[in-house]
């Protein structure tokens, strides 16, 4: 929430101050959910393995112990039915949090999501609200193959009527989840597996960080300057924020000043923040773990070009190059937006 004030500042706003409580992103999400459930008995959680298992990526660990099986519901593997159930419950004033285990599974239930959850408010002329959160895991990097490693946020963001939130760290995850539950609009909450701080997956060092105990809101639709800089703007989100920060830290030693903008949501997209940063640096790099074409990276570039094409001195995308995510480690890391690819992109941009 607090913008870094100096380009030399290395620490993230979400890094803990000495002595403060540190949580993983998964725990931060659980806490946000639990705090709302304590206060509002219309909130409930539903999905596959969200009960005793605690969510395959730990988004719901501990909740069933606290709230019981009436409010934390394991479902059959019937995404269309249970997401639709969430919609109907939301229409009647409940506030469901529904988990789609992997974003990759949207294809079995997209009609409920994009033609119902996202359109009922509009079609009803605002008379029916659908206050529902659909949370889902995204991202690859652990050889889970082409059907379990996709980000797909561009797919959701293209279709109107749902907010699309993508946190990158524990602090934001908690505050954005609280906002998502609170808003009267449907929200897709896409958490990257690599930022959850799971014990059984390579951990990003910033996936455990300081999180306030009390409830707080991170507003949906405001990007965050994760690191201020003057030479190059990296617009990014989710795990790629951390790769970008790592590259920025490294290149600072060489006198290259990189600004890293963490979008935090695609819908609404904080176009002003993007334009503001590029107006300063003139060099735009979009780092996106989703497929490159017809998605987020093009939209970010278009947002600037539409505003004023002369702001753009150089434009680069570091994204998945329109191939399915390969299984073999070497191939997968050839298509992911790795620090090495980001660094190369920054150096290229600096050469223009």
């Amino acid at each position, binding site marked *: 929430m607090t913008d870094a004030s100096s380009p030399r500042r290395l620490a993230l706003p979400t890094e803990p101050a000495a002595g403060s409580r540190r949580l993983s992103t998964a725990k931060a999400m659980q806490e946000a959910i639990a705090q709302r459930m304590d206060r509002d008995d219309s909130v409930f959680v539903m999905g596959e393995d969200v009960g005793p298992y605690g969510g395959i990526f730990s988004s719901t660990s501990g909740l069933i112990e606290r709230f019981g099986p009436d409010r934390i519901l394991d479902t*059959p593997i019937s995404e*269309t039915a249970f*997401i*639709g159930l969430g919609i109907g419950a939301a229409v009647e004033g409940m506030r469901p949090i529904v988990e789609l285990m992997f974003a990759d599974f949207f294809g079995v239930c997209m009609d*409920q999501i994009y*033609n119902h959850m996202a359109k009922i408010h509009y079609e009803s*002329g605002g008379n029916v609200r659908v206050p529902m959160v659909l949370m889902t895991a995204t991202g690859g990097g652990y050889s889970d193959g082409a059907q379990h490693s996709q980000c797909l946020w561009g797919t959701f963001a293209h279709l109107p009527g749902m*907010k699309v939130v993508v946190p990158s760290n524990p602090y934001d995850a908690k505050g954005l989840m609280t906002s998502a539950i609170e808003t009267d609009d449907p929200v897709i909450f896409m958490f990257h597996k690599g930022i959850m701080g799971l014990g059984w997956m390579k951990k990003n060092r910033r996936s455990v960080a300081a999180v306030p105990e009390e409830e707080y809101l991170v507003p949906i*639709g405001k990007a965050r300057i994760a690191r201020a800089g003057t030479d190059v703007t990296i617009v990014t989100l989710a795990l790629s924020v951390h790769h970008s920060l790592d590259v920025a830290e490294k290149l600072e030693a060489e006198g290259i000043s990189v600004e890293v903008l963490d979008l935090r949501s695609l819908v609404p*997209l904080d176009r002003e923040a993007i334009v503001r940063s590029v107006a300063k640096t003139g060099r735009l790099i979009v780092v996106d773990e989703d497929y490159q074409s017809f998605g987020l990276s093009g939209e970010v570039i278009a947002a600037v070009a539409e505003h004023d094409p002369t702001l753009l001195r150089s434009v680069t995308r570091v994204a998945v190059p329109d191939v399915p995510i390969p299984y073999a480690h070497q191939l997968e890391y050839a298509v992911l937006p790795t620090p090495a690819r980001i660094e190369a992109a920054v150096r290229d941009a600096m050469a223009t």
Partner: protein
Amino acid sequence: MTPTHSQALTDDIRRGLLDTMVLIRTYEEAIRREYYADKQPAFDIGAGLVPGEMHLSAGQEPVAAGVCAHLTGDDALTATHRPHHVAIAHGVALRPMTAEIFGRETGLGHGRGGHMHLFDPATHFSCSGIIAEGLPPALGQAFAFSRRGSDRVAVAVTGEGAANQGAFHESLNLAALWKLPVVFVVEDNDWGISVPRSGSTSVASNALRAAGYGMPGVRVEDNSVEAVYAAAGEAVARARAGEGPSLIEVHTLRLWGHFEGDAEGYRPELATVAEHDPIPRYRDTLLAAGILTTESYEAMQASAVTKVEDAIDFARNSATPDPLGHLGYVFSEGAHT
């Protein structure tokens, strides 16, 4: 008609069933008239006061009347692309409904939704143009009702063609598993657009499928409004009692085309369809039984015409939406771009 939870077929209920059927038919005929009024001589689907696809329900009135007689506006109902009959029987107010079909600012959705997207929070009514996708939200309404300890129920209506869609299966299983107060109503009108039931469904009755979910399933033959009434009475009572969902399949009749403009060249029995119209048949039954007189029937018709024409007039005289408002209603607080 007055909602009632009774299943006994009193004369009042019988007349009420007919009354509902007459109101629906009167409505559909008026919509059809308006739909074609300004599409002459050349039919243009996008032209006129009432543009777009138009799926009318003439012939299927027994389903709507028989089922909705057991509901109040506190119960929920989700319908399909062919929603008018159940909307009317469920008590959706004719004026805003008609205004929505006419695309007017006074419509249920301020003209945003249209004929396939009627949302009425007052009666918990909704519909969807996507096959079988109205079922899952009904589960959620039922879930909310039972969580709050009420005996309210949700009815999900769908066609026999739609019963082959995945959402049907998932919804029946989940409703049965969680014992949700849902009544599934399958309107078997023999056709899914141009595809006969024999070309879509591997089994003679969807009631057989109900057994595969451990829920009661019945098939009502012959488009009989009284048989529908009886079956729905049991199913609704069961749901209200917390005993879980049921399925009712009704062998009904699509009197007109799939949508208006459908020449029905694919329909071999086309010439004799009108003979099976359920309304004259039920009227004659009630006349013969002395429950109805010609005069009271005519009064029923006249009253229906009055209500329907009032709604049509209301719609016709309502303002069209301001095109400058085209960005509104996406989110609860303004558009996102």
